């Protein structure tokens, strides 16, 4: 996992560095400095990680396993449903989609009483809609209710 992170940081900072060489004027100076510095620091981090790897004993391996760096099932499900929510927001609209989102996540996270889940989902949606739409004058996507 650590090596994956190091690789991603190299790619990101490398991209920023490469692009910065193409900027006109002095627009590239600062990003070039910072991304260059990150590449150097990341190399130190890589060296440290390699050094630590050598020292790793069975005990620390077992501890690493116990701590488990893998994202949980909850993370994947919440992220997936949340991305879906954002994508569907313009076509379907806030007022219909939000209670559906709230209800599904609440059941997924272990909400048992149906009445609490349904009522709180609808109340939350209305309160937030009222707050942002009326008090703050923000155009929240209306979707199919636009008619």
């Amino acid at each position, binding site marked *: 996992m650590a090596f994956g992170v190091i690789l991603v940081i190299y790619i990101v900072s490398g991209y920023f560095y490469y692009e*910065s060489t193409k900027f006109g004027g002095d627009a590239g100076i600062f990003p070039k400095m910072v991304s260059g510095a990150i590449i150097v620091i990341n190399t130190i981090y890589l060296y440290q990680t390699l050094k630590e790897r050598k020292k790793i004993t069975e005990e620390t391996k077992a501890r690493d396993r116990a701590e488990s760096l893998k994202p949980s099932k909850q993370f994947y499900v919440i992220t997936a449903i949340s991305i879906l929510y954002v994508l569907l927001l313009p076509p379907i609209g806030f007022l219909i989609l939000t209670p559906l989102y709230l209800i599904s996540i609440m059941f997924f996270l272990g909400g048992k009483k149906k009445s609490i889940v349904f009522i709180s989902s609808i109340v939350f949606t209305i309160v937030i809609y009222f707050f942002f739409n009326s008090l703050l004058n923000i155009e929240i996507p209306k979707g199919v209710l636009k008619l």
Partner: protein
Amino acid sequence: MDAVLQALVNTLSIHNLVVLFVGTFVGIIVGCVPGFNASVGVALTIPLTFAFPADTGLILLVAIYAGAVYGGSIAAILINTPGEPGNIITAMDGYNMTKNGQGGKALGMAAIASWIGGSISAVFLFLLAPPLSKLTLLFGSFEMFLLAIFGLSIIVGLSKGSMIKGLLAGALGVLFATVGIDSLTGTYRYTMGMPSLYEGLPLVAVIIGLYSLGAVFELGEQKSSTIQAEGIKVSKRDILPNLQDMKKTIRTIFRSGVIGTFAGITPGAGMSIGSAVSWEAARRKSKTPETFGNGEIEGVAASESGNNGVVGGSLIPLLTLGIPGNAVSAIFLGGLLIHGLRPGAALFTTHATITYGLIWGFLFANFVMIVIGLLGARFFSKLAVVPVYLLAPLIFIISTAGTFADRNLLADVAIMLTFGILGYFMIKLKFPLVPLVLGFILGPLAESELRRALLITQGDLSSAAMQPISLILIALIIFALFGTQIQKQIKKMLKMLKKQELDGAKNI
């Protein structure tokens, strides 16, 4: 002085008082619901402040900040679940008092101590901030650049775990801030042709993503669906500490308020240290130190006065030099900048009414806090057991709506989600979040000052670097980053020397 009075009149307008009241109320709720903390609360409030003029918006932010720090004590005392890291010490004595049937007294003491501690720090803020802000007038562009780097390096140096991870997070934050059209040359930088990135990555989306969405994931992963509370009975009779209690604790409260303020001024120290140091000082002064940690009312007083003192203290370096001492004030700095307010002398001259309004607001928020706190402690304590399954999706929806409210762009919500996922992995891999946020906030300041300095010196910074202020700042940056390591080395050397001496003595 005119500005101070003008600001007082402004703050006392009905409009601002309502905001102050609501902000403190919401802040207390944020504080006492575990999993919802001051950082998340302030982050989510930033987009709401756009609905108001700058002074009202900042009063709202500071009221939330102050309320949250106090609110954390309620859950700490009643159910041993500190709502904020700064309330961990409070829980030791406060929860034991609850078990002894003195929960009401502990709540009352927490409210009074929080009020006094916060107010003491507000007085220091009034007295110290204006003269300190004039310091920045002595600073040239290069010095301002170094100051920004100094602010960042303090947070990096104190980040828990490995410093190299803090350094990477901070530098990546600075790098992300370079996205968008360069204001000096008009160059499109890293926009990838997306119009939503022309103005750069939006600060609101980045902050809310990292902090609030991070909280959603964290809550979602909790094993138990609610935090179990034991049966709590707070009798109405003893909600207020009596005169004897006040006499016993009043010195401690004042001392702790001052300690907390200075802990707040010290960058990187923060709530936990403010309350811990105050508690330890009170214990040492006490005639019965053994009662501390076992339900000592003086312990609650020290811890709560200490952590609320931190709030005002942390605003001093923030408003004057732009150096935030902890995560919440880093986010608070974002709120200031979004309203076009840059820390420094101008805050106390050009924008004096807004700044003093903020300070008055903070002082009054502390007062509102005690009123709401004493009247509603029992109601707030129930919030501490809000089930996780209700809280997590609710925070997500508020995050989404808040991010969207910033610029009415759905692309911002996508950016928020991206940073939320990034934040989640950073927490998993033990990368600190604060340096990333702070780097992102301070990056543009650092860049513009550095480029200005390069223009003025025609690319040769060596003379600017040799100025006394620059040299001091460079020394401070090195110390901030490597201070703990240097200390360790010195201790090691001293130990070796001692050993050698002992060996030498043996040989003779």
